[in-house]
């Protein structure tokens, strides 16, 4: 009468085991105590000894199969003995997701990789591998199996597990970051705190945005996303203006900057072109009668825009003095909220950096922004003669919903008038 070798129950909680490999073949003659297979439980891997002697008549499962405890896995007896026909029913007890498909050869199995999955998202794995994967929070899908039947073994899980430093593990846990999905820079892929997203590493320095930078960034992004903007560039011949300014400054002993004149010219031009000093609300353009001129100012904490209120009725000197105070306050960080609000138009001067043209972004909800560029000494034809002239670039960005290019060009021409022929301010 043939005897069965069964899947042993090695612990109270053990319900099934995996045949990792067979150490015998059908037809082999074995003695009691011979190693017939290597099996793995959820706790350990072990060698299975035969309780009986004789010829191996039948191996009931392929290596890699998961078998319930106490189920026969092989029959041993005299050659030619008939073996009981009970094992098929037993084999049905094998849990579907872990059962290795029997008809396939191991080679086919390995080749097809994921196709060995018999349920959706499930992979053949030993119980120990499943436990380890659970402990390490690793998805079995990521693991390359090494089992003979294509099943994932515990050692595969451990090899795939990313280790992390205690600090990285604490940080990852608190921040809900998966260590498993983090590429580690340490030996063997060990995850260090610097590998976690958002942390500092020696290869780079992370500088948090200041509040001002963050708010400016948000506003600029919003502006670019929502306003159809156009930028137009124009060159102004400011030769006589520059000479006049020089003379005025030397006579009065007070330094009026190019910017002061530009702000003055813009305040007058805005009064002449109310649509440039407006805001779009629904289907209406609301033109403001007050010209509140913002002047973009770079500070250590970020870009600030102090606002010169009621500029349309200020004289040049008044604009200059008021602007000087506002700029100082901006740099010292003492600007009040009131001094930064209710702007109707903005001027951004980058001339001192030698910039010759740029595309400023509108400070919403304003209708336009004027960029002031560097004054260059350039050759220009005047009455068919080549002359050295002082040329200043201006770059105007405007909201195309409020006006079109021609209207914007007229506004630029007004500024051109004031700066090329300063006497026009008297008109």
């Amino acid at each position, binding site marked *: 009468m043939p005897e069965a070798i069964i899947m042993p129950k090695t612990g109270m909680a053990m319900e099934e085991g995996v045949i990792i490999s067979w150490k015998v073949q059908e037809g082999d003659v074995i003695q009691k105590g011979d190693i017939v297979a290597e099996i793995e439980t959820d706790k350990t891997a072990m060698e299975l000894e035969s309780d009986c002697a004789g010829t191996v008549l039948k191996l009931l499962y392929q290596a890699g199969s998961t078998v319930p405890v106490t189920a026969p896995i092989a029959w041993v007896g005299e050659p030619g003995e008939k073996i009981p026909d009970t094992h098929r029913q037993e084999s049905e007890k094998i849990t579907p997701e872990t059962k290795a498909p029997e008809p396939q050869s191991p080679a086919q199995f390995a080749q097809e990789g994921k196709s060995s999955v018999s349920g959706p998202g499930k992979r053949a794995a030993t119980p120990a591998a499943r436990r380890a994967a659970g402990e390490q929070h690793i998805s079995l899908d990521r693991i390359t199996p090494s089992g003979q039947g294509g099943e994932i073994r515990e050692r595969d899980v451990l090899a795939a597990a990313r280790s992390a430093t*205690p600090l990285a593990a*604490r940080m990852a846990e608190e921040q809900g970051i998966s260590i498993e999905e983090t590429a580690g820079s340490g030996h063997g892929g060990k995850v260090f*705190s610097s590998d976690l997203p958002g942390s500092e590493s*020696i290869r780079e320095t992370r500088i948090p945005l200041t509040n001002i930078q963050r708010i400016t960034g948000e506003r600029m992004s919003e502006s670019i996303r929502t306003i159809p903007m156009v930028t137009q560039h124009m060159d102004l011949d400011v030769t006589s203006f520059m000479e006049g300014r020089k003379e005025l400054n030397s006579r009065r002993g007070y330094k009026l900057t190019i910017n002061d004149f530009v702000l003055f010219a813009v305040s007058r031009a805005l009064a002449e072109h109310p649509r440039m000093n407006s805001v779009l609300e629904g289907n209406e353009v609301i033109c403001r009668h007050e010209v509140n001129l913002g002047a973009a100012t770079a500070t250590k904490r970020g870009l600030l825009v102090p606002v010169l209120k009621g500029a349309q009725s200020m004289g040049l000197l008044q604009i200059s003095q008021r602007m000087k105070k506002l700029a100082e306050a901006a740099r010292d960080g003492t600007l009040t909220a009131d001094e930064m609000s209710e702007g109707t138009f903005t001027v951004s001067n980058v001339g001192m950096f030698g910039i010759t043209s740029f595309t400023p972004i509108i400070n919403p909800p304003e209708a336009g922004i004027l960029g002031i560029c560097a004054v260059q000494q350039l050759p220009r034809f005047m009455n068919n003669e080549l002359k050295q002239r002082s040329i200043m670039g201006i770059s105007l960005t405007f909201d195309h919903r409020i006006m079109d290019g021609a209207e914007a060009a007229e506004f630029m021409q007004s500024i051109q008038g004031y700066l090329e022929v300063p006497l026009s301010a008297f008109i």
Partner: protein
Amino acid sequence: MAHTCDVAVIGGGPAGYIAAVKASKLGAETILVEQDTLGGTCLNRGCIPTKYYAKTAEFIYEAKNSAWRGIVLPEGFSPAVDMKQAVIGKDKTVRKLTSGIAGLLKAHGVQVVKGKGKAVSSSLVEVEGAEPIHCKSVILAGGSKEVQLPIPGLDHPQVYTSAAILDIETVPKRLAVIGGGAIGIEIAVIYHAFGASVDIIELTPSILPFFDAGISETFSGLLKSRGINLHTEGRIEKITPEGDELILELADGSQITADAVLAAAGRQPELSSIPEHLVRTEKGAVQVDPYMETSQPGIFAPGDVNGKCMLAHAAFHMGETAAVNAARRALPALGIERQISDLRYVPSIVYAVPEAASVGMKRAEAEERFEIITGTFPFSANGRAVAHGSPEGYIEVVAEQRYGRILGVHALGPSVSEIIQEAAVLMAMEVTVHELARCIHGHPTVSEALMEAAADAVGECLHLPPKQ
């Protein structure tokens, strides 16, 4: 006949010789140029000879403090040092180690060329009095030199550099030490033990200004209690000889009389192996990136010459990094991976009696950047230290509150030069105070104090009374 090689290294100090060994080990044909003795400042004029003398000082302190152990010494016994013999012993120690380096380089197949090397480009090194070297990348490891103070009288023969004072054959009766940094303190403690009366003059408000304030303060108290005079915020106007004496005049009007003066105001990069404009320098140091590469591709500058961290052990690390990246450039076919030098966890050590050691951020620095917790363990509560008769000092652990990340460890006491390594390793491996507090340390050992300090940081120290 000009030399050719893959990697040329200028300088045979800690950065240079390690770079040469590493480059050679990676398969690069390597030539090292050294004008003097191999080993650099550390071995010939710095770390090693002072450690030899520091051990002598420790012996003397121990002998003087041995009656409580029941050791019977002849009445009126006062240990004295035969400086002639001491210098011979010191030189013997240094020779043994320098010949070791020569042997090491030879064993690794590094060719050593004697002479003053100067880089012309990343592919050419000129050597005074020898053939030029054609190479594929250059490692500049020129090291550092002593800072020269603009003090009148500093050129007097009784004013010594930290290198020269190691060779004097009599112990001066009165020694004035200019500079209260690591070098100044070490030599001050040595000669104080040898019998000199010592004055330390430090320009800043505290000695060991690069250490945590707590350590500086405790150390100051300890030195004063031993009878060493400290003059902090002391600016020397001039040094005048009077007979055999030197008179140091300070800006506050006070005077210090000495028989010998040590000028130890610090060290600065030695740039003579670098032609001007070849590589970018800033504040007298060669600028390098974390790969140790200079602004000139193919030229690397590890060690003191880049001023990043002027310590021999940092130089070893930087030298190795430079070698890997230089060999990678010279031999692209080998597929060597780029390497960086992470200098965040470099221990600083003062080898005095007792020792001071530190790694990571000072408490004040840490406080600026993080919410911190700190733990302290005094050596007076450490069994081994008390049995040793060295109960002075403490270990402090500074950690980030949120995760327990160890930000800095500061120690003053027996054997802390060895204990600080454990702290550095734990910090580099990101072990937090929570784990350290639960790591079993051998008992009784001095290093237990580190674990106890970590436990104190998380309120779990069982060898200290509860905090109020």
